[in-house]
Structure formats: C-alpha cells, structure tokens
C-alpha cells in the first residue's frame, strides 16, 4: 500500500508501513513506545540513584573531604559542559518539534547540532579526566597525587571522593556515548527523510533518553563541582 493512498483516505492505521500489526493505530503505537521508554528511564533513575546514595552516605561521613576535594575539579570546564549539555537538550527538543511538524531538513540539522554538542561534552570530559590521571587524583589504590597537586597526598580520604566522581561521571559519560550512537542513527534516517509528522516515534523516545542524560548531569554538576566554592575558611 502506498503512502500516497493513505494520505488521501486519511485512514492510515493499517496502511502505514511503520505500523506494527498488533497496534490499532499509529497513535497507540507511538504512545506505547513512549510508555515503554518512560519505564526504561525509571530503571535508569534507579540505577543512578544507587550512586547518588553512595555519594550522600560518603559525603555524610567525610564532609570536609568532599568540601575540599570538590575544589580540585575545574569549575570552568564543568560549567562549560553544563551549558553545552543543556544546549544539546534544547536542540534535541527542537529536533522532535521539527519532526512533529514534518520538516525533515531542519530536523536533521538539529539532530546534527545535538550530536556535535554531545561530542564537545565528551572532549571536555576527556581533558578533565586526562588531567586527573596526570596528577594522580584517582580512586582507591591508584590515588597518588603528585606534581602541582602533590599536597593532596596527605589527605588520604580524598580518594573516596574521586572514586565516586569517576563512577558517576563515567557512567554518565557512557550514557552520553550511547545517546550519541542513537542520535547519529536518527540523523542518518532523518537525512533520508524517513520521519514524518505521522511517524517520528524514534526521534521522540531518543529525545526522552537524551533529556534524562541531561537531567542527571544537572544534578551531578552542583553535587561534584559546586560543593563549596567560598573562600577557604
């Protein structure tokens, strides 16, 4: 059945090539996919909540350590990455909007922008990580500050902060990477004009995932980088 015919009669429920046979309509299929994505996002929240809880417990045990170790992270880089990720959330939301309006050219452009911003985020993260590796601000038995951070070596419990820092930002970074793969796939499909105002479910559900990745960073940024930036007291 051609899509032209379905557009004319308006009853594309059983004609749209993207409609699976077990769904009544494109709308039902779309809403089911979204519900499934939300359930998946809840499992993601539960996954991260374990790490947030570890953060809370260890910060309760070592408030001074977390306070000072937080200052060892680069506020300019962390802040820049926050702006980048929020910007990518906006471009992703606009890509979904363009898909809803059935405009594939702008949609592909917004998807590409999202992909580029995600790439910028990971490049900045790479520089942050390599600096921490370089000066030995690492978790557990790898904790061996030297160079211009050598003075930190005398406060052994700082390693706890960096264990949590690398776990949380690392798991978040993996999610950014997965998101980039999904957005790249969407971009290829959008360029081929595969999405329309009737069928854009993949754009919407990947968008939901991407916004969750953004939300997690919205919490990570103040928790890790901004514990206390007031003058040392």
């Amino acid at each position: 059945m051609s899509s032209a015919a379905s557009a004319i009669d308006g009853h594309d429920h059983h004609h749209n090539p993207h409609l699976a046979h077990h769904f009544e309509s494109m709308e039902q299929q779309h809403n089911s996919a979204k519900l499934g994505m939300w359930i998946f996002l809840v499992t993601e929240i539960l996954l991260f909540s374990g790490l947030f809880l570890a953060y809370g417990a260890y910060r309760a045990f070592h408030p001074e350590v977390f306070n000072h170790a937080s200052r060892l992270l680069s506020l300019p880089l962390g802040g820049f990455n926050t702006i980048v990720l929020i910007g990518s959330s906006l471009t992703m939301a606009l890509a979904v909007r363009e898909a809803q309006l059935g405009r594939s050219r702008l949609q592909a452009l917004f998807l590409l922008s999202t992909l580029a911003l995600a790439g910028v985020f990971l490049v900045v993260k790479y520089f942050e990580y390599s600096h921490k590796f370089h000066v030995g601000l690492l978790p557990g038995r790898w904790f061996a500050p030297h160079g211009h951070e050598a003075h930190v070596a005398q406060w052994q419990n700082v390693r706890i902060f960096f264990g949590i820092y690398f776990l949380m930002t690392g798991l978040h970074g993996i999610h950014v990477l997965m998101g980039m793969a999904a957005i790249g796939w969407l971009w290829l499909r959008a360029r081929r004009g595969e999405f329309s105002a009737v069928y854009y479910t993949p754009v919407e559900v990947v968008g939901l995932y991407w916004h969750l990745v953004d939300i997690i960073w919205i919490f990570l940024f103040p928790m890790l980088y901004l514990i206390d930036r007031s003058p040392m007291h």
Partner: protein
Amino acid sequence: MADQSLHQPGHAGGAHAAHHVHVIPLKVYIGVWLALMFLTALTVAVSFVHIGFLNVPIALSIAMIKATLVALIFMHLYYDEKFNLIVLLSGLVFVAIFFAFTLIDPLTRGEVNADEGYFLVPEMPRAGVDVQPLAADGLTTGGHGEEDTHGAAGAMIDTHQPGAEPAAVGGDASVPAEELSGEPAHP
C-alpha cells in the same frame, strides 16, 4: 476508529498528521532554555557564598527545579497522557524509600555513639591547625614525638559525624587527648 476524534490538524501543522500532537511553541522552548541557563548561573553563584547547612538544600532545590522544567517541557510530560507522569513519580517514590531507609544509618551515627562524633584523623587543612601529613600508607605519621595526639592522629579511624569540630585534632585543647586516642594521653 475512536482515535479519529483526537485528530487535531491545526496542531499537527500538516495534512498528514493522523494523531493527536501538541506542538509546543518555539518561544516556550527558548524560554525554558533561558530559565535553565539562569538557574545554572544562580547555582554557581550560590556556591561562592557560605551559607552553612543551607548550601546543600539550595543547590538541590535549584537542580530539582531545572530537572522539573526539562521533564515537563522538553520531555512533554506537562502535555502528555498523565500515565507517563505516574510512571515517573512512582519510580521516584521507590528512590525516596531507597534513600530514606539507607541514610537513616549514616546520618544518625553520631547520635548513637558520641565517640564517633570526633574527627580522629586530620582529613583536611584548617586555618590555625598544624596538620601533620600522613605517611603514604595512611597508618602512621612518622612520629614527630611532640605529643601523643600525633600518634592518635595517625590511627586512621575515619568514622565521625558530619558537622563535628575537626579542629580538635593536633593538640587543640577543646577535646581531651584521651578521647582522641582512646587511651590516656599522659600515662
């Protein structure tokens, strides 16, 4: 089909739209983005002000507002079928249970056992406190031998209460040395 009653061509912006789509105006997206930028600047600014115990609730509240904005507008929860919101909130209920029952322990240890309320190890530099560096293995201080409290400081017992006064370490008179070491300081 019953679904046809939901058909809103005006919203979908095209004759091909066959289902209910609420296209949010561009200016709403831009407005939310501006709000997120402002709140990011605000949370950075607040971190430079020392407000004591209020710093954490303020930072988390700002993050929560930002997350809510993203969820309601960018993720369309405000316009969606409410069932998606129910799924999210029920998940958050379980996160709250998870947090509450686990944090009962770490947040109240100092109330049960007062001895755990003292910093036994100088974890971080404090103004006016001469902190002896820990040796590489974190167990000894190298024995400067000025006072017994230095030996206690090297004992690496790291259970303590948030908010306890860490300046007690290193010979400060506010805490008797025997409480730091667990044994008489001057036998």
